[in-house]
């Protein structure tokens, strides 16, 4: 985190005027005490700020070529740079409001439990961690494969409540007797009558997709009046003969087989056993077909590509809010603690509901604190850098770019165009100036 970026709503108690008249020696002492600070601020902040403003009107190589506002034109016409500006706008629109709201909710809720210290510590912890380490941490969280990434693992649990994945997602028919695709379901074209045995062979099933518990497939014996059959993995090391149940080929337990009548309606279903055998029982005379519904072949949820180009900004914003919620919560909680309790009590005595007290008394009284958190977050968000460069993989960095990152990549990331880089820095500076003026104004009022 960058503690130095925490904005200030300066409170200002006027320094007491000295009783002794200011003699030369006192001035001298003042100068001496201030000298080191002024040198540091002058050389590393004031001089560079002026330099960067001038530099932004010159080309790639030093001050050789004056280019006017060309660098600024580049800034607003190059797609990678406009993307950065757009992304930063999204950040500003979403993050300060969300972080302030989350902090407010947390601060209010923690007032109601005994173990608020533990909760606050847990939420505040990410504030002590570097944005860099946070980037690494969330990169592990966001891995796309739901087996490996915690966020998508959680997502998969939710998705599976609504839609269970099929047992076989890559299976293909093993002979031309079976037709169809994973999308349409597969049907055995051989007509079936009571007493028939259906052999539905599937292939292209990777070993790790074979349902657990599968044993040697068995072609069942025909039973009078019954329609039965086997659904099996029609493949063994070396190949085997397609369409024939052979030693080494296993059943596909759990696959649901449908029996359809001549109109195509499903009349019976049966689940295959460990050896792949299924039995529809006694069926009324007629011609039937057996098939497997598309559900069996549904692909499991692949997970969101959080680190891909489309979702990278939301992914970054979530991680960023994870960091800053603690700051917002602690500042707002301190504001809540300082709130005059009698005002709240008076409202309650007058019969206001808890919600009314919150909405009409707490929030207005907290407004100054909330605005400080909000403004602090605007500045922080405009300067966001570490998290983006760490969390966004190289392939997504153009899509994830923000102003501070664009400035750095333009100046030090290979292109090394100090002209455009300076223009971006000045643009960033211009964005934070309104906040600066706001602070100075408040400050002056208090002096």
């Amino acid at each position, binding site marked *: *985190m*960058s*503690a*130095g970026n925490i904005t200030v709503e*300066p*409170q200002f*108690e006027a*320094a007491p005027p*000295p009783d*002794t008249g*200011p003699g030369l020696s*006192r*001035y001298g002492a003042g100068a001496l*005490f201030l000298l*080191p*600070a002024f040198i540091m601020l002058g*050389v*590393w*902040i004031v001089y*560079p700020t002026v*330099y*960067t403003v001038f530099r932004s009107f010159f080309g790639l190589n030093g001050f050789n070529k004056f280019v006017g506002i060309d660098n600024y034109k580049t800034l607003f016409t190059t797609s990678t740079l406009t993307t950065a500006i757009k992304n930063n706008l999204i950040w500003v629109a979403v993050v300060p409001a969300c972080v302030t709201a989350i902090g407010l909710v947390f601060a209010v*809720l*923690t007032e109601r*439990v005994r173990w*608020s210290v533990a*909760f*606050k510590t*847990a*939420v*505040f*912890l*990410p504030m*002590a961690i570097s944005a*860099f380490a946070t980037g690494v941490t969330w*990169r*592990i969280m966001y891995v796309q494969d739901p*087996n*490996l990434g*915690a966020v998508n*693992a959680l997502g998969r649990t939710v998705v599976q409540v609504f839609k269970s994945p099929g047992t076989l997602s890559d299976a293909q028919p093993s002979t031309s007797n079976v037709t169809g695709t994973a999308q349409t379901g597969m049907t055995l074209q051989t007509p079936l009558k009571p007493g028939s045995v259906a052999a539905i062979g599937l292939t292209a099933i990777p070993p790790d997709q074979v349902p657990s518990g599968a044993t040697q497939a068995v072609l069942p014996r025909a039973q009078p009046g019954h329609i039965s059959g086997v659904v099996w993995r029609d493949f063994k090391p070396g190949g085997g003969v397609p369409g024939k149940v052979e030693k080494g080929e296993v059943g596909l337990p759990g696959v649901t087989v449908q029996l359809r009548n001549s109109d195509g309606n499903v009349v019976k279903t049966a689940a295959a056993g460990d050896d792949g055998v299924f039995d529809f029982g006694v069926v009324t005379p007629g011609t039937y077909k057996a098939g497997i519904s598309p559900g069996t072949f549904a692909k499991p949820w692949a997970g969101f590509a959080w680190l891909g180009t489309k979702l990278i900004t939301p992914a970054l914003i979530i991680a960023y809010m*994870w960091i800053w919620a603690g*700051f917002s919560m602690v500042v707002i909680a*301190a504001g*809540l*603690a300082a709130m005059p*309790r009698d005002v709240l*009590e008076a409202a309650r005595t007058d019969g206001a509901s808890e919600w009314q007290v919150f909405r009409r008394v707490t929030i207005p009284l907290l407004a100054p604190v909330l605005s*400080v958190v909000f403004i602090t977050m605007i500045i922080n968000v*405009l*300067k966001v850098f570490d998290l983006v460069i*760490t969390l966004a993989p190289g392939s997504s960095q153009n899509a994830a770019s923000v102003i501070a990152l664009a*400035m750095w990549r333009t100046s030090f990331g290979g292109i090394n165009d*100090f002209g455009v*880089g300076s223009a971006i820095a000045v643009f*960033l*500076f211009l964005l934070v*100036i309104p906040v600066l003026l706001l*602070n100075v104004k408040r400050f002056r009022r208090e*002096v």
Partner: protein
Amino acid sequence: MATADVAIPQPKLSERDTVGGKTVRFLTKAPVNILLAFLGLLWLIPTLGLFLTSILPAQAFTVKGWWQIFSKPSLATWENYRMVLHTHAITHSLLITLEIAVSNTLLVIIIGSLAGYAFAWLEFPGRDVIFIAVIALLVVPLQMALIPTFTLYNHLGLYDTVLGIVLFHVAFGLPFAIFLLRNFFVGIPKDIMESARIDGASEMKIFYRLILPLGLPAIASLAIFQFLWTWNDLIVALTFGQNVQPITVAIFSNLRQFGANIDLIAPASFISLVVPLAVFFAFQRYFVQGLLAGSVK
């Protein structure tokens, strides 16, 4: 943490002491407790995930994520840490990080408290205007200074040196330091200052004997902030260093092959995070105080 002062006196409810009242309170509070427990866990999971990733062998991540350790605790190993701590690049970068963080913290405290004292207790023309100007520097994004400083360092031979990185940090740490310390020093009782001056103590002596000891709480807050800020820095060291790499930069150069280097990235990141966490837990109170002084009071 400020939570101790944040504790709110509960309004006395008439039914507070009856069994029925207790049950009602428990029932109404149960949803809040459960919700907060859930949220608290949610907030801990990413850090826990990093730690568990750091103690699993890299080949474990072909089938399942870090949570497999709950079903197979025997997989846990310190091997990654042993390897990382035997990697010279990492151990060396830890020393550099410490060097940068400590020297920055000391310099900011010394320079900042001198200036803070001058702004609080010395009289000179335009004092408050100059102070406001210094405060205004708080919002200057450090991106404004990267290019000129880079050019300057190349001339002065400060590029790729610990000193160059430290000085940049000090400058950008000063506005906050001066602001925080000046406001704290102003609150020191005037009588103490006056009697010291009447006794003929020099300004330097007053500063050294009175201001520094009395200002210790504010200085402690500042020290923690500065230490964490520089320890956690990436952009400054990335810009002004090449062979001089603090821990963040040293790990950063491995990020390109994230999956393949996970057994180095995860433990090294966790090591880089242990120091700030220890500082945070040891000095929570000062940390929060500084935070509040910087935003609201």
